[in-house]
């Protein structure tokens, strides 16, 4: 049986979707139950707790970037709310 969300390391700020999750499916995050706002593909991240602008996000205990917009627990964490502390992430369609 495929689990829904993986916590790679205790204390991580994000959980990883271990399988595709459909919008509306109930996510169990930090003891709370939150419906998924959108479809979440395998390998994507959701916030393990509420995140504020400027927070440093940890995955597997390692910092992977800085929060650029508030994120509620269970919401997807990606390029729209997280940026690199090193190099800008280049997106398709950008110069």
């Amino acid at each position, binding site marked *: *049986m*495929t*689990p829904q969300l*993986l916590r*790679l390391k205790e204390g991580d700020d994000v959980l*990883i*979707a*271990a*399988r*595709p999750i459909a919008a509306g499916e109930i996510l169990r995050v930090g003891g709370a139950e939150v419906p998924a706002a959108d479809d979440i*593909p*395998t*390998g*994507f*991240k959701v916030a393990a707790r509420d995140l504020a602008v400027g927070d440093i996000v940890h*995955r*597997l205990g*390692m*910092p*992977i*970037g800085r929060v650029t917009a508030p994120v509620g627990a269970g919401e997807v*964490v*990606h*390029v729209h709310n*997280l*940026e*690199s*502390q*090193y*190099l*800008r*992430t*280049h*997106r*398709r369609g950008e110069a």
Partner: protein
Amino acid sequence: MRGYPRSDGRKGIRNVIVVAYLVECAHHVAGKIAAAFDDDVQVIGFGGCYPNDYAAMMLRRLTTHPNVGGALLVSLGCEGFDRAGLADHIAASGRPVATLVIQQEHGTRSTIERGRAWVARAREQLAAVPQVPVELSDLVVGTICGGSDGTSGITANPAVGIAFDGLVAAGGTAIFEETGELIGCEYMMRDRAVTPELGAELVGAVRKAEAYYTTLGHGSFAPGNADGGLTTIEEKSLGAYSKSGSAPIAGLLKPGDRAPAPGLYLLDVVPDGEVRWGFPNINDNAEAAELMACGAHLILFTTGRGSVVGSAISPLVKVCANPQTYRAMAEDMDVDAGAVLEGRATLGQVGAEILELVRRVATGEQTASEAMGHQEFVLTYKAFEPVGPSCLPLTVVRPGQTMGAVTG
């Protein structure tokens, strides 16, 4: 495992003839020569007309790679490549070699004809080479990730790390690379270095990569990585880093350097000096070529999005991180590491499966990309300074092998 003994003490797990074009203008002719034969005659080469020390070094290393039994050089005639120097280097290794200059052979058709005749004779010669036993301690295995996604760092990459730990424990040599995709992991690597001086060099190599990519304007991060759920270069790095396993880091290599002792090495692929000639590695096969130039007999290639490439010279073992990708592209994959996500296998089981596959491929079993004829190869302009004295602290020499990293 059985392989092909070479005059420098190394052993090949394949016995291919390479047809090497020395400028793009000779590429078509080289391809037509090779096309007359089976998959054991492979095309490599350098497209540039103007000489480059790095490219010349790379072709010296690759034409005398342990998996290569002989080489045919195809020159147009007016390009800058030192074809005589390359031919002498190959001849000194005891391998059959010939050079055809298209402008002296009266053009395309006659060069193809003469090239095919030479290759046919060389293949007969190579078929007579007796095989010798090969152990894991004889092998150099590289790893690359290509088309990473959010699953790569959870399944395929740590599974390769477990296989690397097993290989190193058995006395083999393992090489991970792509310093631009280790940004954010520099201090963890430093703490694994066998000496503090090497640790400082590892941090320096990542700093160099960061500066290089900053000048270029963006990191080693493709739009497809974000489509697959990776958000930042440091998140991609974290996943890539897990391919290195947990062995101590024994040294820092640059393209073409041979590991002086068994163990785990980092390959620095970012050019030295000012930013010239564009992106450090224009695609995954440029990295594969550099691992092969360091002697990699085979390469563990992890993918989440689904890469299909293979390589000339050294087999690529495809370790698929994402179970959905595996189901969609199973014919291109060798290992279903995404099974870990679905509870069908543990990381340890997939790591053991990868190491077992290394043994089988080293015994001659074809990988998925080999079976489908994939033989991609790319070589571009680059520039490197030799590694510093702190980079290779170990000088244990394996029986029959030359001491120290090969230079020049």
